[in-house]
């Protein structure tokens, strides 16, 4: 299998088949912002921050680079007016939940996002799923998972598994893009009040 060549922001980039646009960009030293991506984990496509503009077969469209496989002759633009506008809105939506997260604040400065655009509902979790997926894919323990769906979705440790596994691991804590203590808090709550049901 030969390498695929395509362009990102006017630069010629080569990648092996099966790579995603984000991976190819990172390999070439081009930055695309992400919150839910991690090299050890399967692409998730949840935060949508890594959205890029794509020109292929004569038309332009927006795709999420972390789940889009590279193709020959793609023309990728990592910044455009529309891309920036969408990233700004996503950041503003997330800042309503985690107004003091450093990663979000850095990106907010870059994209001119206003942390007070939406009414604050600090829950800290931005549902990037890093802790949940790391525990499942890398550690294969499934000690933490998502409960409920839509706007009621939350992360929750399963007390029965967490009581045995978590104290010696805690590898998910530093993954959290908003606040390492968030996972610690949810874990402590799940262990202290195991009878609180799935909501932990």
């Amino acid at each position, binding site marked *: 299998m030969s390498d695929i060549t395509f362009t990102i922001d006017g630069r010629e980039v080569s990648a092996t088949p099966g790579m995603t646009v984000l991976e190819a960009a990172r390999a070439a030293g081009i930055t695309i912002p992400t919150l839910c991506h991690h090299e050890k984990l399967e692409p998730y*496509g*949840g*935060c*949508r*921050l890594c*959205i890029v503009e794509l020109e292929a077969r004569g038309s332009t469209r*927006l795709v*999420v680079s972390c789940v889009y496989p590279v193709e020959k002759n793609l023309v990728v633009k990592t910044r455009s007016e*529309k891309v920036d*506008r*969408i990233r700004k*809105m*996503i950041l503003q*939506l*997330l800042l*309503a*939940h985690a107004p003091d997260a450093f990663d979000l604040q850095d990106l907010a400065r870059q994209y001119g996002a206003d942390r007070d655009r*939406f*009414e604050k509902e600090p829950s800290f979790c*931005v*549902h990037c*799923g890093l802790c949940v997926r790391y525990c499942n894919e890398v550690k294969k323990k499934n000690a933490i998972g*998502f409960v*409920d*769906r*839509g*706007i*009621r*979705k939350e992360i929750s440790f399963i007390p029965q598994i967490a009581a045995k596994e978590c104290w010696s691991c805690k590898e998910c804590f530093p993954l959290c893009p908003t606040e390492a203590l968030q996972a610690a808090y949810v874990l402590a709550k799940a262990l202290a009040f195991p009878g609180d049901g799935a909501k932990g």
Partner: protein
Amino acid sequence: MGSGGMIVMDEDTCMPDVARYFLDFLTDESCGKCVPCREGMRQMLKLLTNITQGKGKEGDIELLEELAETAQEAALCALGKSSPNPFLSTLKYFRDEYEAHVKEKRCPALSCKELIAYYIDPAKCNACTTCGKKCPTGAIIGGKNLIHMIDQEKCTKCGTCFEVCPPKFRAVTKISGVPVPPPLPEEARTIVRESKQK
């Protein structure tokens, strides 16, 4: 709205409220994986609820449009991508209704409870006491041969008086965007029946 079904509505249906209703449904259906859908719809629903409750602010419609674009372009699945459609299509054809809610605090369809008041037209009221007997909160002032009025403080806007007022009188009306007219002076409230005069 998505399934190819057809919904028939008349001028009594408030368009921003229809959009709010569908958003409420879609918010419940969202899986919560991607940000534009989970967070975008949370904010859209909040804004639309405020608009239908008369708490809409200048700029809310534009913010809704921005959120709609983000969801259409960046959401992960078809549910998220199509979630702003109820808002966008009602806005496209009934922008004036949205503006009436936000700027004039008026519901043109006379449907949003927070934006309407029930009012008895004294010229039409025949003091039949039907509405007074049915009102669940005792908000009807008046009695036999006394023109009825609604105590706006007590009124819960349930619409019972509007429904039970006999069709030959049609004295109960809904008003929106204008203040409730002042009550009649005490002495003008008595109805003198012609048949009784003879």
